């Protein structure tokens, strides 16, 4: 028991001890030095991971904390952690503009929900065709879907803007719905294709032998099986639509303004409105944070277009 000194043993002497393992340490109750070394290393690496997590989370925590301070307390240097908490920033934020941020939040919700619904309606049958009943050259089709994601949206924005201006669709939320649908459709097709590929073909054949038509097969047989996958796809489409700013900035104005565009109003806000800016950022990020935390596991698969399982 006395032999392995409790003092932190440097790595050098521990190595030979590990090499002479078969000889056995004197005390059975004391873990093998190599085991203890590995444990210590694990603890250290665990602490390092915690440190990294805290460093990355710090700005988010800081944003939240600042949003809960009064403007005077928010704008101090060095920062005051002990300042009293208040919802003043949030009240100020919701009092911005004539109707507050509500119209823009409603527009964002509309654009995100409707485009996500449209994406799912278009992508589900397409993914079905691509995964369960492969058409000829179906991989080329799949790659075409993906390739549209690789073209910079900025290069097609001007004609869309001119089209919208000439048809009176400028500042119309349905135009955003349409564009967000096309923006998310490739991702959705790819994700769903990878989920559907796991549905056993025999199941579908059986349903078809029973006389089920395609809508029934899709709705009654396949959809329940890939439900979680569909939910994940929907969440990711929702997140991307909610976050989008360039289209919304160029194509909407007052009535169809989305939440990110509303946020751009704070870009030049100087000095006294830090708590309000932070409150705005928290409120507008909240739906995405909630959706993202809920779909953590599926997030990677979705964002890597179904390529990573």
């Amino acid at each position, binding site marked *: 028991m006395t032999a392995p000194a409790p003092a932190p043993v440097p790595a050098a002497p521990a190595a030979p001890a590990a090499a002479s393992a078969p000889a056995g340490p004197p005390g059975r109750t004391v873990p093998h030095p190599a085991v203890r070394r590995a444990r210590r290393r694990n603890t250290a690496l665990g602490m390092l991971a915690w440190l990294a*997590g805290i460093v990355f989370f710090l700005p988010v925590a800081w944003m939240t904390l600042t949003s809960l301070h009064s403007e005077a307390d928010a704008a101090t240097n060095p920062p005051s952690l002990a300042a009293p908490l208040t919802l003043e920033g949030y009240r100020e934020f919701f009092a911005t503009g004539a109707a507050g941020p509500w119209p823009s939040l409603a527009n964002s919700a509309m654009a995100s929900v409707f485009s996500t619904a449209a994406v799912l309606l278009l992508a589900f049958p397409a993914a079905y065709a691509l995964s369960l009943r492969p058409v000829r050259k179906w991989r080329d089709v799949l790659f075409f879907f993906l390739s549209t994601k690789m073209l910079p949206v900025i290069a097609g924005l001007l004609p869309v803007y001119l089209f919208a201006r000439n048809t009176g669709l400028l500042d119309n939320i349905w135009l955003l719905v*349409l564009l967000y649908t*096309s923006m998310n459709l490739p991702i959705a097709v790819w994700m769903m294709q990878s989920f559907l590929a796991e549905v056993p073909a025999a199941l579908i054949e059986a349903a078809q032998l029973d006389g089920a038509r395609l809508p029934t097969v899709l709705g009654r047989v396949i959809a329940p099986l890939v439900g979680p996958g569909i939910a994940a796809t929907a969440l990711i489409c929702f997140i991307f639509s909610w976050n989008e700013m360039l289209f919304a900035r160029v194509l909407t104005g007052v009535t169809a303004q989305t939440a990110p565009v509303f946020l751009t109003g704070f870009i030049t806000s100087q000095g006294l409105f830090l708590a309000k800016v932070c409150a705005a950022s928290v409120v507008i990020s909240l739906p995405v944070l909630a959706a993202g935390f809920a779909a953590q596991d599926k997030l*990677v698969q979705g964002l890597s277009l179904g390529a*990573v399982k």
Partner: protein
Amino acid sequence: MTGQLTAASPPPAASPPRAPARAPAASGRLRAWATRAPLLPALVFLIAVTQLPFAATLFISVFDWYALDPGGREFTGLSNYGTVLSDPRLRSSVVTTVVLTVSVVLASLLLGLGLALLLDRSFRGRGVVRTMLIAPFLIVPVAAALLWKHALYNPEYGLFNGALAWLGGLFGVDDPVQPDWLSDMPLPAVAASLVWQWTPFMMLILLAGLQSRPLETAEAARLDGAGSWQVFRYLTLPHLRRYLELGALLGSIYIVQHFDAVFTLTAGSLGTANLPYTIYHTFYKAHEYGLASAAGVLVVIGSIAIAVFALRVVSSLFSEEVSGS
């Protein structure tokens, strides 16, 4: 359901065919169409909404079109392309785009690799740490940019200078350095905020890669006396290669197009204007439609070059998965 959708998308561009007609078993041709039919709505819609605008951009790019000059739209051939290629502002935005993309993707990939390796082992509170690490990726990009601009980088009351002042106070420095981050180092400041947002994404992809790695080979290698570094270098890293490529590829696709941070943090000033910002500015603020379109076409050409490489990567990822079917 389909009817509801068409109602939801006003322009007539995409009126997808309804559910496929039932194919009589007799006709092979009809059956082939029935097989394809579920694919068509999505395909037609996507071609209409993404490819037509690009075609229009191509068309506009050969005109000299200054929107504020009413009669001023005339065919100029390829001269817009010459102007774009010789315009120092546009050329510098190409350089900025490349520098920003490469530095952000590399830095977030390396950091993400380190974090993925840390999170691949079990320790107390791993779930909490993972959730904390994902948070930056889930903040709305404009909100993230505002957070960095106002709450972190602000020279007077931002967290960074506040922390420097606090540290200075601890060590008895009366006059600690208080840089104006966005003016003193604009591009690194933009890059840092993007690295913060994208590292979690890289970590998630690489973590998925690490967790899909076969453990037996590593065990066998360890029994044969391989050290941690050797296992990492000769087993883990080769296994991760495709995941690293995928992360780099997807990161590039998104960062090349990134607009929000540049728009919010610096409004394209101080040498931070990337191509999306410059094109946005050229048509939305400067009203040079022809020039903006030519620049857009050049961006597409550049992207196609990346995409060709990218599709090969994805194709290799994909081929294993489907080789059986």
